[in-house]
């Protein structure tokens, strides 16, 4: 009996030691995995169910870390939802994710169904655009329910706002209050009041801003790509339809196709200084101050991003969120799980698990820290959602009804004829130094890409300068002169001399003589060196000519591109400042991407 006891004692001890050893192992693994940086990939477990997600660019602020945490838990054998070890037979899940512009990804998914040989084809398990419009549009374009909209759960909330300088908003509020006899605090502001500034003979000066511009500068992105732009354009159609007597709840094709409603939208678009492809750029543009733009359509989180000092440029004063009185949209960042042949039922279930994980309070706290309102109502709103950051948590008070997909699609298509068209001079330096480092050849490729990127309703002219200024293609509709532009660009040769000042002066003066108030007027000036001209035109002359245009109702935008290391950045910066723009820097490696980006302004 004693011997039996001793044997049992030893067995027990060994078992206990074994248990202690087992306890240690996960904890040491845990330490290793928790130390993995957010951007480092976690090894995929061999038996994992792999799913993919393509999300809106702004979700880059929180989803990569979230994906890493999720994958790390499974790699440790832990279910991240329950924090319990995986049950027997329960397979780990592995998520791969990347960002993509909502409109482009939506097209790619539809192409995967209807046109699988197209260059743009996307086959994710989850598509997480900024707003559900894209999921409804995907269903509409594909002609089938690619997404169960009721199952596409919101994961981060952000209303679309107008980010406007506080001084500008106060000016409007005070002026309207004086005119109507209201308390300034009671004045509700929307498109109606913003248009009043535009239509006022002296612009901002009539609204109490000394030396204020005569015109209003507004900006938004491309509604074919950007969710914010799409929601903004729909809101503009609502605002215009109401002015034209629409009393219904939801826009229909009747309103969208109404010539008066379209003209109303065109009037709003007249406020546009320039467009851009991505919201990311607009955050930087607006941060430059009221001289550059008066207000921009953004998601509320972008406004918080700027006011929290996270842009490269520190804004000179506070931006505040204007929630237009006519109404706005919530962007819900829904997780749409694809109902398509490339998603198995196992993957769909795994996608639901990941969605649940993103909605857990811990992840939602992270989402909120990046300026999005939490989608999980159990997580109370906290910092950065404070009035000091320019937002109002009780807004938006009026939310617009989302029109049917075919109406949203029609609004998108209307973009080509309601947007503000542009007159653009492309001015290229062909001095001798452009022969070095293959600069001219790269510039030619970039200029061709620039032309390709423009809408054909724009008008474009081409000028070059070396020891003289030559207008190679007169300003004209791109549809008609695209061929001449291509031919001339391909034939460019380097020559001696750099008449930078004379060229700029000539083109800006030329543009000033043909003032078309309905169009953006822009000069894209690509230069790789200092002015070596005869100095009959000085830098001051150029700056004065540009400055004179600033007081026009439709000022010229000069966008200088400092090309290569020898470019005279100081001179180009002075010209840019006179036009309230900034010098863009490029070299032969990235000049094409830069000019493509600039083409998205128009």
């Amino acid at each position, binding site marked *: 009996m004693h011997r039996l*006891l001793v044997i*049992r*004692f030893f067995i*027990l001890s060994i078992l206990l030691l074994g248990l202690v050893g087992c306890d240690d192992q996960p904890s040491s693994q845990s330490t290793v995995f928790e130390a993995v940086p957010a951007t480092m990939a976690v090894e995929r477990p061999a038996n994992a169910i792999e799913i993919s997600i393509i999300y809106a660019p702004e979700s880059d602020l929180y989803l990569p870390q979230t994906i890493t945490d999720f994958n790390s838990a499974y790699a440790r054998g832990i*279910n991240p*939802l*329950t924090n319990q070890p995986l*049950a*027997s*037979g*329960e397979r780990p899940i592995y998520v791969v994710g990347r960002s993509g512009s909502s409109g482009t990804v939506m097209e790619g998914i539809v192409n995967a169904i209807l046109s699988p040989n197209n260059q743009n084809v996307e086959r994710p398990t989850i598509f997480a655009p900024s707003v*559900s419009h894209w*999921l*409804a549009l995907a269903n509409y374009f594909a002609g089938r*329910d690619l997404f*169960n*909209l*009721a*199952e*596409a*759960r*919101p994961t981060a*909330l952000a209303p679309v706002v107008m980010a406007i300088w506080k001084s500008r908003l106060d000016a409007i509020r005070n002026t309207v209050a004086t005119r109507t006899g209201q308390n300034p605090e009671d004045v509700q502001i929307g498109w109606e009041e913003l248009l009043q500034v535009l239509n006022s003979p002296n612009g901002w000066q009539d609204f109490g801003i000394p030396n204020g511009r005569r015109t209003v500068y507004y900006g938004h992105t491309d509604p074919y790509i950007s969710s914010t732009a799409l929601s903004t354009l729909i809101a503009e159609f609502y605002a215009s339809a109401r002015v034209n007597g629409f009393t*219904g*709840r*939801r826009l*229909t094709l009747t309103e969208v196709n109404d010539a008066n409603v379209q003209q109303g939208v065109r009037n709003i678009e007249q406020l546009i200084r320039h467009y851009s492809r991505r919201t990311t750029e607009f955050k930087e543009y607006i941060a430059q101050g009221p001289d550059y733009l008066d207000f921009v359509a953004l998601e509320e989180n972008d406004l918080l991003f700027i006011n929290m000092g996270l842009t490269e440029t520190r804004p000179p004063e506070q931006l505040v969120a204007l929630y237009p009185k006519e109404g706005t949209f*919530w962007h*819900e960042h*829904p997780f749409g799980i694809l*109902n398509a042949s490339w998603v198995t*039922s*196992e993957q*769909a*279930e795994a996608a*639901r*698990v990941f*969605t*649940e994980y993103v909605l857990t309070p811990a992840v939602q706290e992270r989402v909120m820290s990046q300026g999005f*309102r939490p*989608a999980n*109502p159990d997580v109370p*709103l906290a910092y950065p959602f404070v009035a000091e950051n320019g937002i109002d*948590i*009780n807004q938006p*008070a*009026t*939310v*617009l*009804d*989302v029109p*049917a*997909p*075919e109406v949203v699609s029609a609004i998108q298509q209307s973009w080509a004829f309601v947007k503000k068209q542009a007159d653009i001079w492309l001015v290229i330096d062909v001095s001798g130094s452009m022969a070095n480092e293959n600069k001219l050849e790269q510039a030619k490729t970039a200029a061709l890409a620039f032309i390709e990127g423009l809408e054909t309703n724009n008008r474009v002219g081409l000028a070059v300068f070396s020891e003289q200024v030559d207008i190679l293609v007169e300003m004209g509709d791109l549809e008609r002169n695209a061929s001449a532009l291509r031919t001339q660009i391909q034939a460019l040769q380097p020559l001696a001399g750099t008449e930078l000042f004379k060229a700029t002066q000539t083109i800006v003066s030329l543009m000033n003589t043909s003032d078309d108030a309905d169009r953006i007027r822009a000069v894209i000036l690509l230069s790789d060196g200092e002015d070596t001209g005869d100095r009959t035109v000085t830098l001051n002359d150029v700056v004065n000519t540009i400055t004179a245009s600033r007081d026009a109702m439709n000022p010229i935008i000069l966008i200088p591109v400092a090309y290569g290391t020898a470019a005279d950045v100081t001179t180009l910066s002075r010209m840019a400042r006179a036009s309230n723009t900034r010098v863009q820097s490029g070299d032969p490696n990235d000049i094409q991407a830069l000019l493509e980006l600039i083409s998205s302004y128009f």
Partner: protein
Amino acid sequence: MRQIGTGIVIVFVLISLGIVGLGYLQRNQPDPTATPLELTLTVNPMAQAWMNDAVMSFNTSDNRLIDGYAVTIVLNTVPIDDMAVWKNSAWTDQNHPDLWLASTSLAVDYAGYPVRIITPSLAQSPMIWVASADVAQAITQDGISPFDWQTVQAAAQAGTWANFGATGINGNVNIAFALPEGTMNGLMVLYSALANFNQTTTLGNSAMTPAYQTWFTPIIQSVPNLNTIGDNVATFMVSQRGSSVNIGILPEVQLLNQLEALTTRRAIQVAYPAYSVLFDFPLAEWQVTNLPEQEANRRQQAIQAFSEWLLLPAQQAQLPRYGLRPLSENPTESDDLFRLGADVGVEYTPIFAGQLESASVSFANILLAWFAQERQR
């Protein structure tokens, strides 16, 4: 020396106790030669919280021990709506749960899977209206009219609160219900409207009269964005986006689980539609035909044991904690959620003019197709 001796004695006493304890545990463990039986369970989101706790409790109870082997219920961590099961063909012969707790027997019927209902109902929850108190006052004319489909429809017909003649309420008449094409409770809202318009408990094509279609259209138009409400109107209403919702219709269980948050944000009033549609939470089994007889018998015994355990009075008594109604006992004042609900109109024993009895899958499809077309107008 005496201390060392005492220490040795204590160590031996502890070891002895440990060995005796282990022996006891061994005797009470299932037969180690028998393979444990795991049953997977997927539930509707409305029952997930309840079933999560119930399964944990079952898995540690003696009821799971059957003839010397242990049954473990493995609850899918992610619930799934009945409509997703039905419309998305979520399950295959190779990938399916053993047990499915749907929100309604209708869904089990519609889904068309090889499933068999083991227990027709484990819990209950009726459909309920919720509105801001000022809105409820306005549409019922301070309580003169009942808060029902007719009064809600009249407000929807007006379009805006100004048109309806309600002073102090701004903007459009905003109604919220779950998307019928995407959720079972959304489809049940359509059934509720039809049953109440026609004052009937059996729904078929004859109920879809032109008069009904005309009557219901303004209600569809009053939902600002059906696509993004999701499957839980109560959660939507307490979220930031839901602040503009005036009236919602939803399962009572969803309302009760968000009641505290809802009443913190605004004063509300609830009411039951006269003709009720009831969520009955049936437990269904995926019928497996290729198991050896002994294994099939064990599986049946296990399913039966779990099902019967859920119907025990002690387990049924847990339901009100989750906002669900037990089968045989009504909730009482001692049930916190229902007591809180009673202050805004939740009834311990609601009385209905009638209760939906049947609606075929073909009729469901016709109704959904009509709704999809109508909401795009």
